[in-house]
């Protein structure tokens, strides 16, 4: 845990000054980097989300509530894990927060161990998400290098069509298909068709997740 702590930052958004300050104290005592914000607006304006970490958000805040902040982040495609803090057992609100993709919620006042465990989980999740994100970015950059014809050929290969059928379908020679095919394998940096299929499937799954905000 402490290994990640060096890089990862915990963002705390809460309108109650004492709570904010005390949570910062608690988390810093556990060697985390902490940044605190007194309202959702401040947070949205000043945070770049480039640093790995997680969010701890108060569910009840004046102006923009925790739930609204969560929706805004979802719309922006920011997938940093969120832990909600509820003042008084506001179960319906917390439930809808979790439905919208929050990692979990915790009721004030809370047990230190429970909070640290939640934060630990969030940071692990964040790391995984970032890793997946980086992979995806790599795939995108490789895909960008493909020509239109190469993309067509790749689609066919991934669909499991033999070279002859591809040549027939695209109205080109089998030799040409073979040439395109090896270019695709090169550019996508894979050694086998199986790897290529895996790569494309991953990308499609991620796209699907994005579209459905999962």
């Amino acid at each position, binding site marked *: 845990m402490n290994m990640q702590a060096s890089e990862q930052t915990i963002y705390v958004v809460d309108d109650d000054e004492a709570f904010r300050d005390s949570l910062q104290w608690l988390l810093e005592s556990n060697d985390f980097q902490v940044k605190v914000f007194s309202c959702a607006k401040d947070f949205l304006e000043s945070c770049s989300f480039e640093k790995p970490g997680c969010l701890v958000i108060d569910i009840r805040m004046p102006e923009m509530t925790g739930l609204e902040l969560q929706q805004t982040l979802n719309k922006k495609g920011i997938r940093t894990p969120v832990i909600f803090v509820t003042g008084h*057992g506001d179960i319906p609100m917390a439930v809808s927060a979790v439905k919208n993709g929050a990692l979990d919620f915790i009721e004030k006042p809370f047990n230190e161990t429970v909070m640290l465990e939640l934060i630990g989980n969030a940071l692990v999740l964040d790391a995984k998400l970032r890793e997946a994100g980086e992979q995806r970015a790599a795939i995108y950059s490789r895909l960008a290098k493909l020509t239109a014809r190469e993309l067509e050929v790749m689609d066919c290969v991934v669909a499991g069509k033999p070279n002859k059928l591809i040549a027939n379908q695209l109205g080109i020679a089998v030799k040409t298909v073979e040439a395109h095919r090896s270019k695709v394998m090169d550019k996508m940096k894979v050694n086998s068709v199986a790897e290529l299929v895996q790569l494309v499937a991953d990308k499609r799954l991620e796209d699907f997740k994005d579209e459905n905000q999962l």
Partner: protein
Amino acid sequence: MSNNKRHLATMIHNIISHFAGRSLPSRVAYTFAALVVIGALDFVTGDEIDLEVLYLVPIALMTWASGRNAGLITALAASGIWWITDRYIGHDTFPFYFLWSWISIITTFSIVVIIIAKLKEAQSKTQTALHRSEGRYQTLVTAVPYGIYETDLSGKITLANPAFHRILRYSEGELYGKRIFDFLSADTGSELATNDLLHGLDSQFNSTPYFTKLKKKDGTLADIQVDWVYKRNELGAVTGFISVVTDITQRKHAEDIARRQREKLELTSRLIAASEIASTLAHELNQPLAAIANYNSGCVRRLRSGKWDPDDVLGAMEKSGAQAERAGEIIRRLRELVRKGEPNRTPSSLNDIILELSSMLKIEIEKEDIKLILDLAADLPYVLIDRVLIQQVFLNLLKNAREAMEQTVPGLRKIIVLSALNGGNAVEVSVRDHGQGLTEEVRENLFSPFFSTKPQGMGIGLNICRSIIEFHGGRLWAAGHPEGGSTFTVSLPSVNHEHASI
């Protein structure tokens, strides 16, 4: 005096009606006999005493009973008898003078006959009118939707209209001859009403309407309102009662429903208000509590790790202390809010409060087949209390007692309220139910906030009750009863003691 007059009038009335009740021949025979007797008397008494005026009695009677013509014939007959008797007595009166006397007598008799005949005519006209109005009364009584019945002094029903039969679900005519008191339910109210009726006879008691329940033929009860008047004979003596009965079962039912809904609504809104206060309070208090916990945990963590800066830890601990004060401030604010309705303490009698409540709840409690037994000690000292608050406490305790006995067999449902002096400086009132009693677990948590054994309970009632009692310098505790059920006891300092301690 007036009694004697009444006596004479009754006697004359009796003679007239006796005579009028006979057949015509016997009337003629009586009259003739009377005339002869008078004639004989006149003859015997001789010239010195004039008895002519006596003839007027049979003449008048005959006229009244048989009409003008019969009267005139009687007058003629009377004058004839007078003629005969006077003739034999009359020694050597001047014949012309004798004739003159006869004429004047027959004239006088005739005038009397005519006057009486007129009177009789007028009287029978009134009687016809009376008959007619009697008929109208009958029609009215039969037609009105209100139950009407008449009873004699023993309560026997002498008249009952169709509507009254309908109210009690009897077929027409069945109620005649029955005693009205047999229909009254064993409700105390009706016993009172019966007593009122009977006592009313002695004094000139004003007839006030009363509410009661009457048993129907099928055994169920009808809620009724009774407006009544005394029934009197011609001489003004009370002979019975005439009562008009309105069936208010439906109305009462509707009122019951409306009242219950209102109570439910009040309770609900009170509960909502209470839960709102509780929720706000919890939210407010959680902030400083969470902060305190965080500062503390952080300090512990740092001290354990060995890498710590005294200034940092000191700062955190100071902040933690400030948060504890903030929590205290929130509670103080809430207290002030609650105290805004500053209790209005007056020296009061706890017995009075219990009596008030018991009469207020009586109907409700009896509906649930619960016996409320009050065992109140006399001459208890006053206690210095806010009546409204203390009333709420007992209301709550009685409500709990009622609800505790929902599973109890109806015959065994009893609430005993006992008041007593405790050691000379406190008044104690205990409310004992015959419900399931208290388990160990329940008794331990009884006064904790938000603990309830009721499915709909908020768990606030007893907690607030105890606060109110403690606020008054008293105590509230609960105990199981060896014979089952539970007892809640309130002890409040009496006025004298409190003054002494101040």
